[in-house]
C-alpha cells in the first residue's frame, strides 16, 4: 500500500538497477519506459537545477522513451527497434532490458521481444524493475540477482573455483555514500590477508568479474541488499554466503569479518595476514592516541545517527564500542526488508527503521541527542535543533569521490569528522559543550568555562 513519504531520497527500483548496470563495464542497460524515468536515475548525482541534461559522469543510457500512443497500443514494436539499434550503437557484452512502471502496467511482453534476439545469439536479458517494486537499493539487488541467475544459466556446471576469490555484494553504486572508496578499501583489506575481491562494480569490476561469479569460494554480503545475488549463487553453485553486520568500520570490525571469512573458507589467516591486521590495528590505535585529548574534551556524547543499512549500524557500533558514546537514536533510512531488522540492530540500542524525512526529524528531535550524525538532510535538521552536526555521509553528488568509512582508515576519517565539528582548532582544552545558534548558519560556541569562542560557520 502507498504511504505518504516526505523528502523521498534515492529514487526507485528502476534507478537502482540503472545505476548498478552503469557501474559494470560491458553491461548496457536499456530502459523500456516513458521519458523521464531513466534520466531521473542520474539526477541525484547533482544538485537542484539541472533536470534536463544527462549527467556526463554516466555512460550512455538507451531508453525507448515511449510516447502516449505506445502506452495505448503497446510499446513492444518500439522496444524491438530500440534493442536492435542499441546493439548497433552502444557496444557491450550484455544488454539488460529494464522495465519502468508504465510498461509493466500496460503489460508489454518484454520477454518475448528479448527472446527474439537471444535466439539470434545476442546476450540480452530482461528484468522487471518498475519503480513501484521498491527503492533504488531494492532495484539494485533485483538487478544483481538477475545477473547471478543469468551467469548461472550460462554456465550451469561450475568449472572449479579460484582460490581466495570472494564475491562482494551489498554496496550500491552511486547510491551508497562513499561506495567506491568503501569498495576499494574492502579490496585492499581482503588482499592484505591473501584474498581477492570479485567486485562486479567499479573500475576493478566489469563483465569478466560477472563471469567469474561462479568461481568464487565465498560471497561476502555487506548489507541486506546483497543477499539476493549471494543466495542465488549459493543455491546454484553452493557458494557459501558470509553475511557481515554491515560495512566493517574500524580495525576490530575488519578482523571480525576476516575471521568469519577465513572460518568459512576453512583457511586460517596466515602470518603475513596477521601482520597486516596488526598494522591496521596500530593505525587505529595511533589515530585514537592522537585524538585522545580532543576526545576527552568533547566528552561522552549521546548521538542521533541516520544512514543506510550498510553504514548506520557499523558507524554506531564504532562510536559505542570504541569511543564509548551512547546512542540516543540510530535511524536506518533505506527501508531494508523486515527480516534484516534483527541482524542490523544486533548489539545496538534505540534502532529504528524510518525512511520518511518528517519521521526521521521527529525521532531525532525526540531523542534528546546532543549531536547529530548523518548526511546533508540531517545537517539542516541539526541546524534547526541547534545541535552540533558531524557529516559522515556525503551527498550523492560527491559519493563517488569521497572515501567512505571501511576499516581503520575509515575510522580515522570518522574521528577526523568528529574533531572537525567539535575541535576544529585542535586545541583540546577549549572544547565546546553545546553550540548556540545566533543567526543564519553562524554559531557562537560556548566553551566549558563559559568564555565564548569566536563565531564560525557551520554547514556548507
Amino acid at each position, binding site marked *: *500500500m*502507498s*504511504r*505518504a*513519504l*516526505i523528502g*523521498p*531520497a*534515492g*529514487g*526507485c*527500483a*528502476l534507478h537502482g538497477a540503472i545505476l548498478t548496470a552503469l557501474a559494470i563495464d560491458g553491461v548496457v542497460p536499456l*530502459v523500456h519506459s*516513458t*521519458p*523521464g*524515468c531513466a*534520466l*531521473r*536515475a542520474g*539526477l541525484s548525482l547533482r*544538485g*537542484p*537545477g*539541472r*533536470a*534536463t*541534461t*544527462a*549527467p*556526463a*559522469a554516466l*555512460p*550512455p543510457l*538507451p*531508453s*525507448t*522513451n515511449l510516447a502516449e500512443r505506445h*502506452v495505448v497500443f503497446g510499446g513492444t514494436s518500439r522496444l524491438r*527497434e*530500440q534493442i536492435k*539499434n*542499441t546493439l*548497433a*550503437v*552502444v557496444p557491450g557484452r550484455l544488454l539488460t532490458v529494464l522495465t519502468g*512502471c*508504465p510498461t*509493466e*502496467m500496460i503489460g508489454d511482453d518484454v520477454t518475448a521481444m528479448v527472446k527474439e534476439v537471444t535466439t539470434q545469439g545476442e546476450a540480452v536479458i530482461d528484468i522487471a524493475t*518498475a*519503480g*513501484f*517494486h521498491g*527503492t533504488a537499493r531494492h532495484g539494485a539487488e533485483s538487478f544483481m540477482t538477475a545477473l547471478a541467475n543469468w551467469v548461472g544459466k550460462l554456465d550451469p556446471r561450475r568449472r572449479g573455483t579460484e582460490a581466495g576469490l570472494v564475491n562482494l555484494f551489498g554496496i550500491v553504486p552511486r547510491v551508497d555514500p562513499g561506495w567506491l572508496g568503501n569498495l576499494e578499501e574492502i579490496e585492499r583489506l581482503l588482499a592484505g590477508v591473501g584474498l581477492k575481491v570479485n567486485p562486479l562494480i567499479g573500475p576493478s569490476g566489469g563483465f569478466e568479474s560477472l563471469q567469474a561469479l561462479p568461481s568464487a569460494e565465498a560471497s561476502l554480503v555487506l548489507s541486506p541488499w546483497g543477499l539476493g545475488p549471494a543466495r542465488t549463487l549459493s543455491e546454484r553453485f553452493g557458494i557459501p554466503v558470509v553475511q557481515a553486520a554491515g560495512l566493517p568500520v574500524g580495525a576490530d570490525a575488519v578482523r571480525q569479518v576476516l575471521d568469519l571469512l577465513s572460518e568459512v573458507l576453512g583457511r586460517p589467516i596466515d602470518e603475513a595476514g596477521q601482520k597486516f591486521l596488526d598494522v591496521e590495528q596500530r593505525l587505529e590505535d595511533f589515530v585514537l592516541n592522537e585524538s585522545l585529548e580532543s576526545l576527552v574534551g568533547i566528552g561522552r556524547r549521546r548521538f542521533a545517527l541516520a544512514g543506510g543499512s550498510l553504514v548506520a549500524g557499523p558507524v554506531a557500533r564504532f562510536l559505542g564500542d570504541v569511543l564509548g558514546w551512547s546512542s540516543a537514536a540510530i535511524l536506518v533510512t533505506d527501508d531494508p526488508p523486515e527480516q534484516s531488522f534483527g541482524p542490523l540492530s544486533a548489539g545496538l540500542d534505540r534502532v529504528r527503521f524510518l525512511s520518511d*524525512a*518528517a519521521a526521521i*526529524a521527529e525521532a531525532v528531535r525526540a531523542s534528546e541527542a546532543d549531536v547529530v550524525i548523518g548526511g546533508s*538532510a540531517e545537517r539542516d535538521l541539526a541546524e534547526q535543533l541547534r545541535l552540533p552536526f558531524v557529516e559522515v555521509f556525503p551527498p550523492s553528488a560527491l559519493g563517488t569521490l569521497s572515501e567512505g568509512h571501511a576499516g581503520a582508515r575509515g575510522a580515522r576519517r570518522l574521528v577526523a569528522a568528529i574533531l572537525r565539528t567539535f575541535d576544529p582548532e585542535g586545541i583540546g582544552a577549549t572544547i565546546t559543550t553545546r553550540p548556540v545558534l545566533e543567526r543564519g548558519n553562524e554559531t557562537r560556541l560556548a566553551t566549558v568555562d563559559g568564555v565564548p569562542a569566536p563565531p564560525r560557520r557551520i554547514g556548507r
Partner: protein
Amino acid sequence: MARRRNRIQPRETRLDAVGAFIGDVASLAAEYARDEPPPPRIRTFSEAEPDDLSVALELLGRFRDLGLVVHGPRGCAAVPVHGPARLAVTDLDQQDTVLGSGEALAETVRRLDATARPAAIAVLGTPVVAINNDDIQATVGDLCEELGKPVVWVQTNALTSRIAATGADAAALALVHLANPEDAAGDLGLLNLLVPAASPEVDDLVSGIEAQGWKVNLLSETGTVADLARAATAAASLVLDPDTLEPLAAALEDRRGVPQLPVALPVGHAATAALYQTLADIAGTTPVIPLTPARTGAEALAGRRIAIALAPGWALALAQLVEDLGGEVVLLSVPHIDRRHAGALAGLAARRAAAQIHVGAAQGFEHENLLRRLAPDLVLGDPAAGAHALRLGIPAAAVVPERLIGPGAVERLDDLVRDALAGSTLALRAARGRQSPYSPGWLRRSPDWHVKREVK
C-alpha cells in the same frame, strides 16, 4: 484555488515544437517559414530523455515555500529541490496501480501540510496515475477547502508531450493560480523580473532597473508564493529565462493582465542600454545608462569555430553574440525548438546558413557524432555538454545565462573563452586514451541516421 481549467496543450501542438532534427539551420528555418508546421520526427534509437514532470518539479522548486506532492511511485519524485522536506510523494506500489490511489494523495497532501507548513501546495501528476486515470483535480479541489490554502494541480504526465518544456507550461498554469492578488491594488511602478537564477549580474541589473524609477519583484530560484501574488499586481514582466519562465509571464499576461515587455535579452551594453531606455520611457524618467565598459571587443572569439549547447532561447542569443564578435557558429545543440524561436533561427540562417542544428534533449550519441565531424575550436554551453566536449579533446566553457546578463556580457564571454582555451590541458587529459562509449559503426554513420519522419 483549484477550479476547472483548460487542459495543457503539448508544445508540439501549441507552438509547433520539434524535438528531433539534425541538419543545417537554414533548412529548419525554412520549415518554420512554411504555412504548415514542421513534419513530426521521431528517433529509432534514443537515449534517456527528460520529461515534463522533471521540468515542472524543478521550476516549482524555485519557490521556496511551495509544498510539492508528486502523485506516483517514489522514483517520480527523484528530482533534487532546495529544501527536500517540502517535497512528498504518494509512494504508490504495484497494488495501488490496480486499485487507485485518491485517498493516498489526500493523505500525503495533509501530511506535508502538517509537517512542512508550506504557503501553498502543488500536486504533480506522473505517468502511473495518468495511465490509471486518477482524478487529481477532484482531490485537489476538496483539499483546498479542507486546508484553507491553495492546492493546485500541475498537469504533468510524461506521456502527452515529447517536449520536456511542456512541463514549464504545466507549472506556469499552476503558478498563475497562486498569483492571486486578492484585493491588492495594481502597482504601476512594479516590474516582475523573471530570471533563471541569482547572480551578481542579476543584482546589478536590478539596481539598473531601479535607477530608471521602477521597483523590482524578482522571481528567481529564491522566490516565494507571496512574490507570485505580488507579480499579479505588477505593471509589466520582463523575462530573462525564456526557455522556462516565459510561460509564466505569458500566463500572467493572459490571466492577470500583466503584459510582457517585448524587449531583447539584455546581453551586452547596447541591449542593456536599450532596455533601460525603454523602462525609463515607460516610467517617464530620465534614463540612467551604464558607462560603456573599458573593453568592448572580444578578440578571443574572432575566427573561432564555436559549438553551442544550451536551452534554445539562450542558445540563439549566444549564437548571435558569438557571430557579432567574429566567431563562427558551426553547431547549435538544443533540446527543442518551437515557433517562438523561428525569428532568431531565420536570423542565424541568414548569417550562417550552413551551421548545423541538433535538436534533441540529452541525445549524447548524436552530439558526439556531430562534434567529431565538425571539430569546433570550443564548445560553449551547459556543463554536461562541456564535459562531453572535453572527452573529445575539445576545450569547453560553461555558460550560465544569469552571468551573461547585463552590460558586461561581451567581456565576460571573452574571459570565458580565453580561460577555456588557455586551460585546454584538461581537454587533452580527458581525451587521453579514451574509448568512445559508442560503436565505431555508429560514429561512421550520418548523425541524423536515427531521426525519421513519423508515419502516422
